[in-house]
């Protein structure tokens, strides 16, 4: 069975997936005061602006935490697999990534983004040990 695809045209988060299709990792920022809007949303409660922009980030981070899933709950996600939680180097934002199998991981280790093309044109930013 094939992996789950993200809804990648949502009004608030679609820009994240559009950037991923171009090979860019982005976070949402307020165009008025530059506040980080993560997870992405339209309104900035810091300055009241409705104007936002997608801001490229460097695509490196550190491993904040992870889990190795050993009990299968979905036919498209065979176990074991690892879900990593990565904290970006240049911005106070986190993303999750998927690693098939078990890995020898340690907290704080460097992680690097890569872009996984799924069928149907969707692209997922993914994370692997640097």
């Amino acid at each position, binding site marked *: 069975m094939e992996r*789950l695809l993200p809804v990648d045209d949502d009004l608030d988060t679609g820009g*994240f997936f559009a950037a991923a299709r171009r090979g860019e990792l982005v976070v949402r920022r307020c165009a008025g005061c530059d506040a980080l809007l993560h997870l992405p949303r339209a309104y900035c409660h810091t300055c009241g602006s409705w104007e936002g922009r997608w801001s490229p980030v460097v695509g490196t981070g550190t491993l904040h935490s992870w889990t190795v*899933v050993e*009990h299968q709950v979905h036919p498209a996600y065979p176990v074991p697999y690892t879900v990593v939680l990565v904290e970006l180097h240049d911005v106070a934002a986190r993303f999750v990534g998927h690693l098939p199998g078990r890995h020898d991981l340690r907290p704080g280790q460097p992680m690097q983004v890569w872009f996984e093309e799924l069928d149907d044109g969707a692209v997922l930013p993914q994370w692997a040990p640097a």
Partner: protein
Amino acid sequence: MSAEPELHHRDRCAIVGIGETDYSRRSGRSDLTLATQAALAAIDDAGLTPADIDGIVRCDMDAVRPNDLAHTLGLRDLTYWSEVGPGGVAPCAMVGQAVGAILSGQARAVLVFRELNGRSGRRYGLAPGAADERRVGGSGTYDELFAPYGMLTPGQIFAVMARRHMIEFGTTSEQLAHIALACRARANANPRAQMHDRPLSMDDYLAARTIADPLRLFDFCLETDGACAVVVTSVERARDLRRPPALIRAVAQGSIPDPQPGIQFPVLMRESITELPAKSVAATLYRRAGLGPADVDVAQVYDCFTITVLLQLEDWGFCKKGEGGPFVAAGEIDLGGRIPINTGGGHLSEGYIHGMNHVVEGVRQIRGTSTSQVPGAEVCLVTSTPLPPGSGLLLRAA
């Protein structure tokens, strides 16, 4: 009455009736039947009849609506209904809704219920969405940023939080085990508990299969078919009823700055993932009650997972941040410890009624009728503080 509005409800309402069904893996009964059975039991326990009930509060994830239950019970004039969510944060806040309805004159006796066929029907431990659905998320769920990566269940979220607690504070699996073992020991004394006949040892815990590392099988709660209900009324009316009232000393709901949207996965984006909104619920509840953690004799702590309890013991002030592991390993949550918890067995070993069986067991402690009664218990804390914003309740003997 105090001049402080938030203190107006202190000790002015009480839980006067409790009811529950059996807890099983396959009830063989409809959602409406489960809710009706628990409701009838609670109303009878109070010494009331359905005709006395004029308010109903439900959980947003319940399959039964107020009018379903009102019709089935034969309520003559439902003047108030309400619902709280999401999910497990509801139960204490549901009691709070009942208090608000009574003190504002919108109802006189309010039924608060939760039912689910949580094992034979919809299982919360499975991935969200329909099995044949390939494209996930959108519409404010933010699932599109998590589910495609295989982040699919609450247990996987809490596994990531548990790993982080281990990284920051050196917490161990053996320490988490003490929470599972304490709940199991209470269930072994409780004939209603699903795990009544199933002892659990440290060896059993450590030998069990891993579900989502670092969490093992017995770090996970049960999935249960069943229902619980309570009846809330004014303290004046409570005096004339069948049972000694469990006074609602105070109730609170609470969130945190930047709680993140959605129901579950986005909490991994919070500044701290080793803290829950329990911390702010605790501050509000203790202030409203004029009590602190040192005054609490026994606690029913929301336990979808062992780690959820560990985080809350710290957030509710029973031990310092990061010291939950040594605290539970020292036996402080056992009978005779600093704060005995989940005296019916909790979600981990009695049954999973989404936080509502914790309210029922809290009332038993105040009545002195628990199967693991804490001698002389006068103040019981009940928590409904898992992932999203939460709620809490302090019950007191009259």
